[in-house]
């Protein structure tokens, strides 16, 4: 079980309101990702759920029980920190066993659970090392191991992959997703990387300045962004947002076209412009074009195309894939 409900949760630091009253439901077994720009309150929200920060008003419910005044240790939540927060003077074995030891479990039982967790996480060979003698990815796995031995109601992750290099991050992303599929425990995951959010989440919560902009499945958010903020945040490269005559022509204050929803041609098209930079990734090419009447946009072409700085190109947006937004930024 691991159902978490936030009811009008509010957090004020000094005189800054970091989280204005916020409601959110996290269902049992769900993988929920909080995503948003730096400083938008993702970590704060996670720490409020964990109980590491006091809630200014409102309440948190875990499995139907009001947990607002329950101390962190009693909430049956396990947290994986960005810095891993391993205990440097204890071996990997002792690190993983620490929560069991604190719970007063028998030594044999502790050992059994530690061995089991270590074999799931490929840590068996490293059990007697100190955290300082491990690589970043291994430390990350120890931190996860320390969380899973507790068999918590839910896991909380605060940007667990941000200290790893790109290749390792890709691997760990898969490992955590697989772990979720085997354990089927609720996971709440904080990141500012929208690729992590898109690939891992069952449900994404997009935060902006402490407010929830939209909640939904990754493809939901991709296909139907509720407002300009979500439209600009989800998707890579970013959606092109165009104002002015082109938008007015479609009865909107702003229109949005994703780079992948434009056809690139050297002969004819709706919009004409000059290529600035073409980024060749091999599988795709991202072309940054300065359109004559519309302004700068990015377009995606699959495969390799031989375009370079200064070339004239034509772009045609797919009419079915144009997003329209009103003056307040909401989707029409």
């Amino acid at each position, binding site marked *: 079980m691991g159902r978490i409900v936030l009811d009008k949760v509010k957090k004020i630091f000094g005189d800054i309101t970091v989280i204005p009253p916020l409601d959110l439901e996290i269902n049992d077994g769900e993988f929920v990702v909080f995503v948003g720009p730096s400083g938008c309150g993702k970590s704060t929200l996670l720490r409020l759920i964990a109980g*590491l920060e006091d809630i200014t008003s409102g309440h948190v419910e875990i499995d139907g029980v009001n947990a607002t005044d329950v101390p*962190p*240790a009693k909430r049956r939540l396990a947290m994986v*920190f960005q810095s891993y*927060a391993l*205990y440097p*003077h204890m071996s990997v074995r002792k690190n993983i066993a*620490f929560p069991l030891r*604190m719970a007063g479990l028998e030594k044999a039982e502790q050992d059994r659970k530690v061995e089991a967790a270590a074999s799931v996480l490929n840590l068996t060979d490293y059990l007697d090392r100190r955290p300082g003698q491990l690589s970043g990815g291994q430390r990350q796995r120890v931190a996860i191991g320390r969380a899973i031995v507790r068999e918590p109601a839910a896991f909380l992750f605060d940007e667990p992959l941000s200290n790893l290099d790109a290749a390792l991050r890709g691997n760990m992303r898969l490992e955590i997703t697989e772990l979720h599929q085997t354990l089927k425990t609720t996971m709440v995951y904080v990141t500012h990387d929208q690729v992590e959010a898109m690939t891992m989440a069952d449900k994404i919560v997009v935060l902006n300045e402490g407010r929830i902009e939209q909640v939904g499945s990754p493809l939901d958010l991709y296909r139907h962004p509720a407002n300009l903020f979500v439209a600009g945040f989800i998707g890579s490269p970013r959606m092109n947002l165009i104002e002015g005559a082109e938008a007015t022509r479609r009865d909107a204050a702003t229109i949005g076209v994703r780079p992948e929803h434009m056809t690139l041609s050297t002969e004819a098209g709706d919009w004409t412009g000059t290529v600035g930079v073409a980024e060749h990734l091999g599988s795709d090419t991202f072309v940054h074009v300065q359109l004559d009447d519309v302004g700068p946009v990015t377009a995606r072409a699959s495969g390799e195309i031989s375009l370079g700085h200064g070339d004239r190109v034509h772009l045609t947006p797919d009419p079915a894939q144009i997003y329209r937004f009103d003056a307040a930024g909401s989707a029409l």
Partner: protein
Amino acid sequence: MATRHSRSAARLMMAPAVILLLGWMLVPLTMTLFFSFKKYLPLRGGDLGWVGFDNYTRFVTSSSFWPSVLTTLIIVGGVLLITVVLGVLLAILLDQPMWGQGIVRILVIAPFFVMPTVSALVWKNMFMDPVNGLLAHLWKFFGAQPVEWLSDASIFSIVLIVAWQWLPFATLILLTSIQSLDSEQLEAAEMDGAPPLARFGFITLPHLSRAITIVVLIQTIFLLAIFAEIFVTTGGSFGTRTLTYLIFQRVLESQNVGLGSAGGVYAIILANIVALFLMRIVGKNLDA
């Protein structure tokens, strides 16, 4: 500083400082060694020639040697115990966010800037005086007989005075160490179900262990040499004669320079053993 030329120029320019420091250290050291092998009684015949290791054997076989070693150990150990325990507690306290933190920290450090002679005299006359001292008034207030601190509880009194002087040093070093503790580790332990005392025992204390070792070793070197505090309070009587004080008495009160010098050489060897440990630990700290 890479070329051979610039390196030799650097050496040349550092030479005066190095030579001065070496002279400062070597002259007294050589003189101590020199006198320790001589029978030298300034008021009773002066230089009476070489005596080999005679002074060394006489120093350790004298009846006051072992008691003075014991006194030294008690004083050093007592001060270390008090400063480390209170230092850890004070450091944790000062690490908490509170109003007026800056001023409180300066106040805590203040005793370190008071000269040993002055602080010992203040303690002796203002606190521990059996007639006019504050402690005597306190005792009388509760209807008790004032304690004659410096004669009845002489060693304890000296430990108290010296600990008061060294507490700021211990607190300062331990405070910087506590501030370098990653707060996420404490939060992780809290979520893992560790109550405050367990968090202290399993996370904070191991984190402090290196700082504590350094405090212990540095203080030991200085505490082995405390002198002024004893000189102005008990003058070495009532069982407060430490090794350092014994050397002083041999040289100045018994006017036996040779015997005192031999004691001095023992003290140098002892201090160097502690310093060796200190350097190895500090070195390890820099590697880690």
